[in-house]
């Protein structure tokens, strides 16, 4: 079966600024695909190109077999898109919003009524049909926005930071909805800042400054630490400790996480001994040095630092 989304060498420039730089990936049917990265990493630009809203500068992208540059209208008819802000009409009721978007998607009569009812049940808004959207809590608006985006039964759904500003319980409920849709064979592409959400994706692409820096399942991404060990150091002055440890040949990587320091070394026992040795000399004695399982955040910091280093090297070379 061919992938639902195929992106190859995709580039988008705005003037001199390159928002998306040589992106290649593919997504298969029924996958929940996470697109991660900081603000300005190029996630939204990528999604807008895949939705047919923006024309790529170069490279190609196909959604459901249709080229985004050649057939954006065909793509728009078959996909669902939920924008960063829940784009609903605040001054219409829940049902009016659903019927409006249904009408815009060309649903009519019986089908429109059926899909509207389905959406109300799916979004868990039974009994709230005649409430003004303005009066709904954030989590409900978010589910209504998703319901509006999938009224026309699209096979691919793009969600651009769908859970911004929503409470954790609503986020959880929203993800249950996403998993249910994936179970029905719908392909979902989700952008997010939240790493706990990223862990719920089947596969993740990490973008940094327009470039793809990591791609794979959560387990695959954690493989970058294979053969190496991550130690968490709790010492009084983490920043000072990092400055002290960095540059030592046996410290492969280090990063500060709040009051703690993460240090990557080749061997757990030897690493622990050397850290204690180095830090006790400066009176910054670690209370604890513990071997931990790398989190996605560790992976991302590793990937982004590697990318930055590569970029700097390219800059020197050119």
């Amino acid at each position, binding site marked *: 079966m061919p992938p639902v989304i195929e992106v190859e060498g995709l580039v988008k420039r705005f003037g001199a600024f390159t928002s998306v730089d040589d992106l290649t990936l593919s997504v298969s049917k029924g996958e929940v695909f996470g697109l991660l990265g900081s603000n300005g990493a190029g996630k939204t630009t990528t999604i807008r190109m895949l*939705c*047919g*809203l*923006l*024309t790529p500068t170069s490279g190609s992208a196909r959604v459901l077999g249709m080229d985004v540059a050649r057939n954006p*209208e065909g793509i*728009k*008819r078959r*996909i669902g*898109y939920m*924008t*960063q*802000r829940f*784009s*609903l*009409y*605040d*001054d*219409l009721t829940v049902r*009016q919003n659903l*019927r*409006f*978007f249904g*009408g*815009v*998607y*060309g649903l*009519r009569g019986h089908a429109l009524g059926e899909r509207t009812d389905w959406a109300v049940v799916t979004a868990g808004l039974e009994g709230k049909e005649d409430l*003004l959207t303005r009066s709904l809590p954030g989590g409900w608006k978010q589910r209504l926005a998703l319901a*509006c*985006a999938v009224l026309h039964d699209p096979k691919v759904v793009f969600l651009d930071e769908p859970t911004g500003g929503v409470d954790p319980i609503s986020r959880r409920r929203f993800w249950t909805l996403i998993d249910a849709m994936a179970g029905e064979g719908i392909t979902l592409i989700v952008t997010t800042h939240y790493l706990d959400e990223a862990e719920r994706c089947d596969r993740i692409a990490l973008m940094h400054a327009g470039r793809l820096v990591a791609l794979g399942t959560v387990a695959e991404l954690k493989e970058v630490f294979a053969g190496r060990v991550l130690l968490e150091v709790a010492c009084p002055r983490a920043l000072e400790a990092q400055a002290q440890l960095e540059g030592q040949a046996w410290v492969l990587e280090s990063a500060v996480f709040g009051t703690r320091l993460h240090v990557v070394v080749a061997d757990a026992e030897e690493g622990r001994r050397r850290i204690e040795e180095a830090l006790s000399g400066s009176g910054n004695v670690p209370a604890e040095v513990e071997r931990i399982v790398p989190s996605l955040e560790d992976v991302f910091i590793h990937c982004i630092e590697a990318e930055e280093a590569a970029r700097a090297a390219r800059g020197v070379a050119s």
Partner: protein
Amino acid sequence: MSLRKVWAIAGKELRQASRDPLSLAMLLGVPTMMLVMYGYAINFDVRHVRLAVRDLDKSAASRDLVASFVNSTYFDQVADLAANADLERLTERRVARAILAIPEGYARDLEAGRVAKVQLILDGADANTATTVLGYASALIGAANARMFLASPAAERVNRSPIDYQPRVWYNPELRSTQFLVPGLVGFILMLTAVVSTALSVVREKERGTLEQLRVTSLRPSELIAGKVLPYLGISLTATAIILVAARLLFGVSVRGPYLDLFVATLIYLIGALGFGLLVSSFADTQAMAFQVAMVTSMLPAIFLSGFIFPIRSMPLAVQVLTYAVPARYFNVILRGVILKGAGLASYGRDVAFLVLYATAVMGVAYARLTRKEV
């Protein structure tokens, strides 16, 4: 174009409008309010001018002349001055705007067939009013002359006034300025409300992000534009009807020409105005900006460059050329024709053609700008 989708948009606009009764009342009520305000405020008619009289002749003839001023209702006599009265103080303190001075010997001169002298002193600080008052006074004196001339023996008439001058003013015989202003007001008010309401309705969707959501649906731009324009066209036409009823009740301005022609002209004019609103929305990103741009670009030309208040023929040539791009200019001509003269559209082919041209051009550019793809 799918009518169903157009209707989905139009129905949503109307639902939103009904949810916001204040805005709807503004759209329908403000035009009438403006009509009332401007109709009473922009009134070039001058009546009840305060007149001081210095009648030193105190004869039956001089009293007749004063009476003809007062009876005209254009003048109210506020003072009767003695010979030594300080005339300047009167005008400085605005006790009187005009002073009629009749010297001693006025009746005697008339009796003797000599030219009798009468002086009118006017406060010229407000030039417009002064000009109007001067016109009234000249007409009153002219009428008095004519009466005396007819009363005099036939033998003496020869050589005195060979031309029998009888001016007539058509369509607005009393030269009431409301008659002339109401059609202009309709054009100005419709332009303002139509441009502002459409511009805001599109920019609001830009601000809320719903426009982006609509762009990912299979909705065609033409469907979106038609769905946006239709409800506001209906609201603006309703506002027009309200204005016309109000104009009739308040100012006695009734439509003398065919209503169908009035409707067609208004429809073409409104399509141009709504298109201009769409054009504004394609430039503005916030409602505040859209409101300001829409106000300035629709209101100023409709007041100053449309012939609404200031006659186009007396403008400098460069400005006259500019007025060709102002649709209100053509609409005013047509409305004055249909409302005051009872004419049909057939007499205004050129103006209708210009309105159609404007509507087509503006809609075309707005369409192109709203459908252009981001790059």
